[in-house]
């Protein structure tokens, strides 16, 4: 059967993608940030998965206000990096895994989560920046990726509780797939940031670090945090952090297994307007 070996959590700030694409990673502003991902790139090489299940949000790129799916799973054979108004990022196209993605869709929908199935979709920085941070600048991404887009643009976004339960359903779906594939599940976005209004630029490092502590040690309790706490404490765009609970819900300990091993933890302020957080959790063997 297929199984989830690890989960990765990271912010997906567009300016990080621009810094990589424009060769600015050695500038003093960016050095501390990229240093925080050196371990991660090495870890990725040593622990290459067969498939990445990548939870992210679309930023008014593939989905306008014409359609706003709460949860959308990409079942296409490939996904093109989007032109977000500055021209597409010069990164490899994203190869999907239609067979596994369709299997997960069927299982998760029968498990009471009404996913939108997407067979044609461009992917924006929410998906490609985490790939760049974890894999560097390869000619091709190391493995197929299943994009999983969550609405965090129009309120209300799904609750932390529902995201956490969805992660558990994804884990059950993966484990009912016959082929012995190793999967990683990534949760992206956040941490504290606000991009609008007179409160733009808000950062709450203390709240972010407590979020990381609780995500590791007591995600069940963390999943009960209501939307308003994210908005008030971590900024209007900090609510992206609910997506991390999808990845965390898919880990073995939530289903009665052993607690995960914390392989890496990193926090840095700022990347543009945002506090950057990053974790790698491995399931115990």
């Amino acid at each position, binding site marked *: 059967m297929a199984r989830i070996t690890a989960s990765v959590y990271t912010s997906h700030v*567009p*300016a990080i993608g*621009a810094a990589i694409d424009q060769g600015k990673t050695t500038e003093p*502003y960016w050095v501390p940030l990229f240093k925080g991902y050196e371990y991660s790139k090495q870890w990725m090489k040593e622990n290459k998965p067969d498939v990445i299940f990548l939870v992210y949000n679309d*930023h*008014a*790129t593939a989905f*306008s*206000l*014409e359609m706003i799916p709460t949860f959308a799973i990409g079942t296409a054979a490939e996904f093109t990096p989007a*032109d*977000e*108004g*500055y021209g597409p990022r010069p990164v490899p196209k994203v190869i999907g895994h239609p067979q596994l993605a369709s299997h997960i869709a069927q299982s998760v929908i029968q498990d009471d989560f009404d996913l939108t199935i997407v067979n044609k979709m461009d992917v924006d920085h929410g998906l490609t920046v985490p790939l760049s941070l974890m894999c560097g600048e390869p000619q091709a991404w190391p493995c197929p990726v299943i994009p999983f887009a969550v609405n965090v*643009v*129009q*309120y*209300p976004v799904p609750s932390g509780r529902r995201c956490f339960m969805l992660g558990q359903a994804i884990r059950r779906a993966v484990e009912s797939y016959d082929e012995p594939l190793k999967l990683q599940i990534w949760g992206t976005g956040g941490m*504290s940031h*606000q*991009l*609008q*209004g*007179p*409160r*733009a*630029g*808000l*950062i*709450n*490092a203390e*709240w972010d670090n407590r979020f990381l502590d609780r995500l590791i040690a007591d995600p069940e309790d963390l999943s009960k945090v209501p*939307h*308003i706490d994210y*908005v*008030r*404490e971590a900024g*209007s*765009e900090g609510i992206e952090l609910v997506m991390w609970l999808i990845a965390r819900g898919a880990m073995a300990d939530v289903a009665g297994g052993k607690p995960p091993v914390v392989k890496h933890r990193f926090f840095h*302020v*700022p990347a*543009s*307007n945002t*506090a950057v957080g990053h974790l790698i959790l491995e399931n115990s063997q």
Partner: protein
Amino acid sequence: MALSKPYLDVPGTTIFDAEQSRKGYQLNQFCMSLMKAANRARFKADERAYLDEWPMSEEQKQAVLARDLNRCIALGGNIYFLAKIGATDGKSFQQMAGSMTGMSEEEYRSMMIKGGRSIEGNRVVGEDGDAQAHRQPQGQAGKAGRA
């Protein structure tokens, strides 16, 4: 019974909920049209004429022409959509976010490097943090205005 909206008392913050989305539908879809290079070129050539192709309110059109992002948001705009105007103008997300605070680009960038805006005094309307209504605009612009 009315919907519960506990987020209305967060200072300097507009949550893009169903009501805002309804109000801003045409404005945001106009922004979305700027994802195409040909539309960006037409908009840049004659902004007013391009805006007149959209069934937006006059107030929304004026807010776009003035690049007043706070006003755009009050009229139903969402920052991820409004960002397409910024991209058309060649502005970064940091420049766009900063423009809504009244600070200069340099002041805003410096605030971020120092760890960002503090949460203290900025959780609930009526406190005394720098995002509160009585402290706008921020930075030198505000000092000059209140002097």
